[in-house]
């Protein structure tokens, strides 16, 4: 009898459904062909590449410095981590050591970005499961974090802030206050969101036991980051291969148990709290920089300085344009390496001295600039989605011969077919949300 039913079932036509790429839950860049039995997913085929913007090829035609904005737009939710990853890869090639303060600032920026990323990911996940308010709360918190970024880097999202040899500019003077406020607001929002989602029966129902990825599967699919940790594997680049100052800070790596959507959600929630801890510690521990030591008097307009430098080098301090704030000469040693070959000289020097001007030109001219030695290098940082690795081959010119990105969510996405198989159509959405697909990073 049962067999008969089975036979009849197999004869039954299944429903083919096309999801995306312009589907509200597919973030505009994924297409899933579903084979459905009612609402159950029998089979699926994930198609990506709708946001393939030729990142790797383009970078082969740009100088190492010009690649920076492109890295911003990989994982556009946490651009600063991408920046850091790329820049540290180049630094590994060049063998530069950067000042301690710059390391701390990078760490803080990375963690802020990580929080932004997790917030956005969970916000999207919540929105797609219907909890619209949570989405708005989380984005609200992100706005406060972005304020810190804007004040420091001069842009809200695509900051191009981390530079080869250090960072673009020092913190503004009121940074402690700014960061404090952002942290406080984020905490508040996290509390609200915990209340709205974490124990909510509907949310639990939707996510618990859905799209379970076992430890073995997770490793076999090359998971890294929160998704791997949700499956219970202890691996975090920040702990395994500590970079920046992560080995000097006290934080924990939250682990999940089941590897289901809920764990992925919860691990992210906990990670955000850890990141907040890291930020607070780093702000405390950060070595003092010029902004804290000296009060810099601003006297001379840059153009006046340039004019007078034609005759005689002016001795007053120069008031830089607002865009260049934080890069005053006094601040330079705290935020940038002392190897002059790889950094833009301080603007004061460029404006008033021939040596500065030459360095400046050397940095910017095509076929000059940063030219790492020949060879290949792989370096990875803990991105918000997992191990974000850059593989760069240099042929000794000022352009990378090959630049490859190990995109964490590419690997995770490749498991999506497996994860949604046997589930319901509605499960696709939180599953998809929980793996935090970012088109820019996935398709590159």
């Amino acid at each position, binding site marked *: 009898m049962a067999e008969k039913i089975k036979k009849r079932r197999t004869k039954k036509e299944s429903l083919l459904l096309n999801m995306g790429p312009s589907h509200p839950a597919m973030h505009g860049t994924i297409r899933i062909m579903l084979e459905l039995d009612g*609402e159950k997913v029998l089979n699926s085929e994930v198609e990506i590449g709708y946001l393939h913007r030729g990142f790797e090829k383009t970078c082969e035609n740009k100088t190492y410095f010009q690649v920076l904005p492109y890295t911003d737009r990989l994982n556009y939710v946490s651009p600063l981590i991408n920046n850091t990853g790329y820049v540290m890869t180049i630094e590994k090639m060049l063998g530069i050591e950067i000042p301690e303060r710059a390391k701390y600032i990078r760490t803080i920026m990375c963690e802020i970005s990580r929080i932004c990323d997790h917030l956005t990911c969970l916000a999207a996940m919540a929105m797609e499961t*219907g*909890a619209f308010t949570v989405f708005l709360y989380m984005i609200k918190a992100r706005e406060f974090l972005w304020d810190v970024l804007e004040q420091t880097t001069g842009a809200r999202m695509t900051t191009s802030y981390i530079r080869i040899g250090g960072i673009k500019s020092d913190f503004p003077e009121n940074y402690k206050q700014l960061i404090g406020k952002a942290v406080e607001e984020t905490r508040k929002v996290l509390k609200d969101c915990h209340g709205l*989602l974490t124990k909510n029966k509907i949310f639990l129902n*939707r996510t618990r036991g859905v799209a379970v990825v076992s430890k073995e599967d997770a490793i076999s699919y090359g998971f890294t980051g929160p998704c791997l940790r949700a499956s219970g594997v202890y691996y975090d680049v920040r702990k395994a291969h500590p970079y920046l100052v992560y080995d000097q800070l006290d934080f924990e790596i939250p682990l999940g148990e089941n590897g289901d959507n809920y764990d992925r959600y919860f691990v992210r929630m906990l990670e955000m709290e850890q990141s907040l801890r890291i930020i607070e510690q780093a702000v405390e521990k950060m070595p003092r920089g010029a902004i804290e030591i000296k009060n810099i008097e601003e006297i001379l307009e840059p153009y006046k300085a340039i004019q007078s430098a034609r005759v005689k080098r002016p001795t007053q301090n120069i008031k830089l344009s607002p865009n260049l704030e934080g890069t005053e000469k006094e601040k330079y040693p705290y935020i940038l390496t002392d190897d002059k070959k790889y950094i833009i000289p301080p603007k004061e020097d460029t404006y008033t001295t021939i040596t500065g001007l030459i360095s400046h030109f050397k940095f910017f001219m095509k076929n000059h600039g940063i030219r790492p030695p020949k060879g290949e290098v792989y370096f990875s940082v803990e991105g918000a989605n997992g191990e974000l690795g850059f593989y760069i081959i240099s042929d000794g010119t000022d352009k990378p011969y090959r630049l490859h990105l190990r995109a964490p969510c590419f690997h995770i996405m490749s498991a999506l077919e497996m994860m949604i198989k046997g589930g*319901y159509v*509605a499960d696709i*959405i939180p599953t998809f949300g929980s793996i935090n697909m970012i088109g820019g990073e996935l398709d590159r």
Partner: protein
Amino acid sequence: MFLDILIIAIKIILGISWLLTLTLILTWVERKESAVVQDRIGANRASILGLRVFGLFQPIADAIKMMFKEDFVPPFSNRFLHTIAPFLSFFFAVITLAAIPFGDEITIGSKVIALQIVRMNVGLVFILAMFSLGIYGIIIGGWASNNKYTLLGGMRGTAQIISYEIALGLSLIGLIMIYPSLELNEIVKYQGSLLFGFIPKWGVILQPLGFFIFLIAGMAETKRVPFDLPEGESEIIGFYTEYSGMKFGLFMMTDFVEVILISALVTTLFFGGWQVPYLYPDGFHFPWGGNILLNKWIVTVLQVLSFNLKVAFFCWLLVLARWTFPRYRYDQLMNLGWKLLIPMSFVNIIGTGLILILV
């Protein structure tokens, strides 16, 4: 005779305009409330002659725009069915209004006028029946759109409404066992009496479980978050994916109409309808003594006001819930309906029966 017809016509016009006005306001409330909940401000720039009035004109703009939006019928679909679906949906939602009492009877001259469009002795059954007819709109719309997503939505909607209809009906049986009539005004009147001398005999007190089930099932009837599976905006976009312009607007309005009606029903059945505690036709008579005597017109006004306030509260609550919870999954929704609500309503019926027998 002519007078009767006139009165009924007036009542119908008044009732429908009340409903539509409230619907329009509710769309505004929905927007504003969600905004305020989310620390926003919400629509406030639609102005007439420079007056903004907190964006109250927003619904008007929406309505006008939708009316003049291109009407689209998908190719290879049944044009007739596609067109009729939203009207069906809307019609069955609005007609439910007929049985709901807004206040006690009023007497003008010798004429006794019930503040209810039609007074029918099967009011409750009528309402349930009309509710369940509403699904035709959804399933026809979903099917006639010639789109897999709408079909999925339509099917979901049908299954959902059918299953919750049962819970909805069963949850009321307890009430029916207690209340003397199926006529809604009678039910409301009954709730005016007091339990133990000081607690109003509201349905919610007599039937807390029933109220709970009815509320949830009612929310499910409205097809809004957390039960918005037929729409499932981020999953299947909804059964009205292929509708545009006013037809889509009708579907949306149906939603809001249903919210109002569910609120009105909850009010009527469980919260004493137009009753104000301790208010009698001649004024307040408090159980702890003391009376405030009032004109009968004032009493009527108070009653209507009370009804409206209660409805407004439940609308607010339903909207709040809509902006608080995530969405159920299809199978979980079915589980909730069949495995939790229906058994519970049976428990409720049996319990009520037992108590009735014992008492």
